[in-house]
């Protein structure tokens, strides 16, 4: 098991290295001064000079790469070319907002997804099952930025029930929570579809197991079998999907944060793209990639811990 975790972590680091290498080479492959490529034609000579120094652009390619990887490995993501602040500090500042948003989206996805999945199993083969199946695929298909716009339009602009802009202040929990409802719903809705489909499939599988037949033969009611026994078994598959889905939630957060002008990793990346602040974009991409990989590893470990069969397969 330890060996398995170590190997996964090693592979994760290798992947991060390849990602950094790809972005780095892309910057150099484009003809012209890399500083102009990264910062745009409107950047000032001072900014370009600072960027040259930071990246060591006057040295040979392999030295630059060594310098860059060396800085990355100690967690130095460089500086914002406009404000000269360390990128890591900026990311650490907005990270809590994005993490809260992702967790709230999970809450929506699990609450609605499990409820719909249970309903589908209870009414299996009848029209509610059919409708939930169709809706679930629909939820997965519709892009999160469209859902963001619809919720903004309906609840914030037309009905004016919830705030449309910003994240509120942490010191005002109720206001913060209110600002969280719409964006997290918009991101979570796509996952509602996934979760409900997985819950349904896993529960149906569980219903065919001998122990469920035993329960039924003892006269335990269908509702009780579904909600008490089959649901428990299906939560296993939900857990692993959710851990894997974290990366998808981060993607959704980019759009939700922009539509609702929330501070966060996605908004910061977008603002940096608009102002051509390459070090910031590079930093956020590396951090999200690292998060994404970490979630994948956690999902695998979780699956191994919860299911002895997976554990045996890994050894």
């Amino acid at each position: 098991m330890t060996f398995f975790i170590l190997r996964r972590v090693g592979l994760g680091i290798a992947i991060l290295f390849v990602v950094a290498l790809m972005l780095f080479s892309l910057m150099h492959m484009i003809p012209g001064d890399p500083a102009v490529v990264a910062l745009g034609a409107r950047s000032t000579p001072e900014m370009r000079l600072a960027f040259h120094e930071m990246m060591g652009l006057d040295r040979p390619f392999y030295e630059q790469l060594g310098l860059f990887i060396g800085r990355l490995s100690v967690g130095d993501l460089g500086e914002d070319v406009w404000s000269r602040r360390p990128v890591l500090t900026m990311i650490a500042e907005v990270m809590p907002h994005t993490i809260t948003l992702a967790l709230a989206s999970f809450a929506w996805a699990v609450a609605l997804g499990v409820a719909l999945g249970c309903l589908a199993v209870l009414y299996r083969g009848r029209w509610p099952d059919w409708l939930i199946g169709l809706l679930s695929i629909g939820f997965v298909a519709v892009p999160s930025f469209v859902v963001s716009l619809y919720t903004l339009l309906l609840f914030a602009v037309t009905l004016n029930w919830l705030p449309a802009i910003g994240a509120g202040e942490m010191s005002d929990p109720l206001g913060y929570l209110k600002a969280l409802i719409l964006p997290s719903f918009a991101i979570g809705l796509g996952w509602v579809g996934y979760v409900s489909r997985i819950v349904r499939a896993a529960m149906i599988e569980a219903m065919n197991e001998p122990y469920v037949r035993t329960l039924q033969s003892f006269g335990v009611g269908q509702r009780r079998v579904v909600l008490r026994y089959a649901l428990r078994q299906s939560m296993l598959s939900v857990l692993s999907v959710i851990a894997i889905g974290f990366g998808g939630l981060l993607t959704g957060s980019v759009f939700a944060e922009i539509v609702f002008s929330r501070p966060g990793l996605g908004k910061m990346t977008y603002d940096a793209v608009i102002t051509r602040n390459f070090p910031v974009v590079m930093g956020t991409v590396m951090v999200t990639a690292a998060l994404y990989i970490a979630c994948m590893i956690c999902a695998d470990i979780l699956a191994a811990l919860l299911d002895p069969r997976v554990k045996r397969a890994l050894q």
Partner: protein
Amino acid sequence: MSEAVSNMHVASGFNQRRSLRIARTLRQIHSTPLGAIGVVLVTLIVLVAALAPWIAPYSPTAISVTERLAGPSAAHWLGTDQLGRDLFTRVILGTRTAMTVALVSLTAALAAAIPLGLIAGYGPRWLDGLLVLVFDSLSSLPMIMFGLAIVVLLGPGVSTVILVIVAYSVPSYARLVRAQTLSLKARDFIRAEQVMNASSLRILFVHLLPNVVGPLLILACLDLSTVITLEAGLSFLGLGVKPQVPSWGNILSDGFSVIRNTPVPVLVGSIPIVLATIGFTFFGEALRDALDPKLATEKSA
């Protein structure tokens, strides 16, 4: 998902008459509500995209200052945007933009993924390991973040959007080709070719490739809605196709800036996106169910 698709092809066998199979598949797709809705929406979108210039009543860039942000009327069925451009025209021509970008980028992705997957599956092990590492790296990036990084370096535009979509699609296609190649490589008909001294190129392109194309097309079909989402999403952020080009994402982007005045442009820009993503997803799912007997029996059980 890709595993299910790859199992399917091996399971369904290769000796059935092709035309018979296509006819049966179409019937099966039509027989489910999912597939029926998918087929109708996909047909509608493809027709609109093909006939767009003849359907559109106005020029997509014709500006009319006096008719800015007009609501739906007889002259402008879906109203106008903040520059007075006819929204119906822009939606219709936007369909063509979305389909063109999707087709070009999926073709480019397939063209890159097939040789890469074949090499990974058939070539030396070190090369396989290296390629798999690159595929894993690309797919461990949240795509929109990687897209934003590419946009910073290359600047916004159609070619950047296509590059982002290719970078997103290549890993999953190449992995499927690789898995398929690996499983076929050990089979007798390939062994026989090797014994008869056939060149690697001949084995790859004459014997392996035809067996890979089917599952690959299903995967590409399931991917279409993601591809449409990526293009529309980047354009919505103002980082996709140029602002004057009619595209669903651009209509949304313009509409978002006036969302407090009127909801019409946002609704007009988003409904085609919803219909297209749902249509292609339903169609793709129905196609997979129809071609994958294993999955289909699980569903009806």
